[in-house]
């Protein structure tokens, strides 16, 4: 059967992280590993036109190893260590790709890409490129930066890995929780970029959200039953379940209370619930699990008024033991106001500092003031929300609320 270029390229993307991980271990140089794989992919475009091999990763690995040897031989100023590598590589028999070795390689690569000594931008770009197998153009488009900027960012990051001696290894038990958390933070950042889209008005980039879920699924396979990995997977699936209900046809944000709950995606909800159950069975709570649990309580309510606010307020209280950020405090205050009364919530909201530039801080205050009948103060708070907003869709929304009050 003739294979289309698209089909072959899909295989490249699927196998990229795995093959690069193995090559990087042999070569000790991520840049060389990527270049050699690039050569192998070019060869594959010619060789696979009839049939894609049954084990494309093995084919690409073997070919890339040969290409790496070629590249090293071609390089004029041969460094001694490269010679040694070339020697080893030339003598490597085409070992079968052992499942355990592959898993270890891949995990090592993820921890390398998310090493705390790289800038957060570099971590995101490298993870998408080497683990996720996205092209530089795709990543540049997703982050709305010129391709050359993204290419440079990736090259610099790979150089830092080499020059600073960032190791290819899975961290030891003592460092592991911190480092896993670092990896999850990178993945959640990628997800939020796709889901919330900080850059322009109400544009969702679902490919980034889907990619983040795929990355987290890989981590779950490599580090099975890590509660926070499961928690993050649950959280992202809960978010995705509400994806289409979050905006109307004109791209305006729809608040949770006003969302059409029949639009919530049952497939994502089922996945999320399964992950959350697996996480909670480990009895080691963490911030992602708690946030997923909060989403679960929202999702379980058939209508907004059925929401179990007591439970949500309690969950925010435990979340604050992990992340006591002003935003978490605000959400906690809102939950308390729903569980008890508006005046109690307002006291908590007014005690928060650092959110003056955050429009939702002002809208939360506004709706509490409105509920307490303090209309003129509520109007002022909505005006502050409008004035701090950076998006047209948001401003339109606040104007409508203001019209209702006046």
């Amino acid at each position, binding site marked *: 059967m003739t294979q289309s270029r698209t089909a072959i390229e899909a295989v490249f993307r699927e196998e990229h992280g795995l093959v690069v991980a193995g090559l990087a271990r042999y070569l000790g140089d991520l840049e060389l590993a990527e270049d050699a794989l690039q050569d192998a992919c070019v060869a594959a475009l010619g060789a696979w036109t009839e049939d894609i091999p049954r084990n494309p990763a093995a084919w690409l690995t073997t070919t890339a190893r040969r290409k790496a040897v070629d590249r090293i031989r071609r390089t004029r100023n041969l460094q*001694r260590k490269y010679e040694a590598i070339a020697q080893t590589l030339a003598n490597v028999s085409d070992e079968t790709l052992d499942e355990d070795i592959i898993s270890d390689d891949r995990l090592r690569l993820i921890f390398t890409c998310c*090493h705390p*000594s790289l800038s957060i931008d570099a971590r995101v770009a490298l993870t998408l490129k080497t683990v996720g197998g996205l092209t530089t153009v795709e990543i540049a488009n997703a982050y709305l930066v010129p391709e050359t900027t993204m290419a440079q960012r990736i090259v610099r990051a790979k150089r830092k890995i080499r020059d*600073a*001696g*960032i*190791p290819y*290894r899975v*961290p030891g038990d003592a*460092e592991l929780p911190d480092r896993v958390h670092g990896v999850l933070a990178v993945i959640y950042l990628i997800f939020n970029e796709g889901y919330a889209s900080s850059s322009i008005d109400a544009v969702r980039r679902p490919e980034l959200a889907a990619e983040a879920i795929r990355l987290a699924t890989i981590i779950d396979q490599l580090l099975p039953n890590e509660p926070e990995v499961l928690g993050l997977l649950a959280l992202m699936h809960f978010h995705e379940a509400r994806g289409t209900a979050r905006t109307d046809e004109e791209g305006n944000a729809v608040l949770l209370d006003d969302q059409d709950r029949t639009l919530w995606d049952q497939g994502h909800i089922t996945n999320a619930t399964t992950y959350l159950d697996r996480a909670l069975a480990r009895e080691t709570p963490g911030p992602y699990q708690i946030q997923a649990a909060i989403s679960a309580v929202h999702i379980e309510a058939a209508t907004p008024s059925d929401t179990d606010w007591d439970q949500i307020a309690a969950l925010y209280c435990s979340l604050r033991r992990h992340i006591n950020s002003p935003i978490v405090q605000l959400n906690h205050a809102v939950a308390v106001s729903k569980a008890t009364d508006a005046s109690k919530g307002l006291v908590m909201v007014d005690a928060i500092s650092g959110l003056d530039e955050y429009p939702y801080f002002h809208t939360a205050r506004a709706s509490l003031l409105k509920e307490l009948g303090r209309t003129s103060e509520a109007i002022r708070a909505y005006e502050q929300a409008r004035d701090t907003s950076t998006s047209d869709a948001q401003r339109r929304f606040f104007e409508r609320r203001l019209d209702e009050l006046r």
Partner: protein
Amino acid sequence: MKYALLIYGDEALQPAEGSPEFNEVYQGYYKFTEDITSEGVNRGGEALHNIEAATSVRVRNGEQTVTDGPFAETKEQLGGFYLIEVDDLDAAIGVAAKIPGVNTGTIEIRPLIDFG
């Protein structure tokens, strides 16, 4: 790989020479140096006088200017350094985290260029 561990700290917060706190810091460095030497990773290091003792020199178009003080006025100043040889950055971070100055200042880890 070889790394320089550059020890930065606020000189204003440094205990006076001869005080019990000073002796404690001194003992800490003595023990740290002993430890990395017995682990076989120590490749040298020095402590520097305060920036009051610093002199900066520049030559521009053949003309030399000498000024007092450090190259840049910063909140934390370079107070000393170690050279170590370990497998990778994680190992270097592990060593740097044991330098007494890490508790009040910052250790900057810089890989050395290998010209070999």
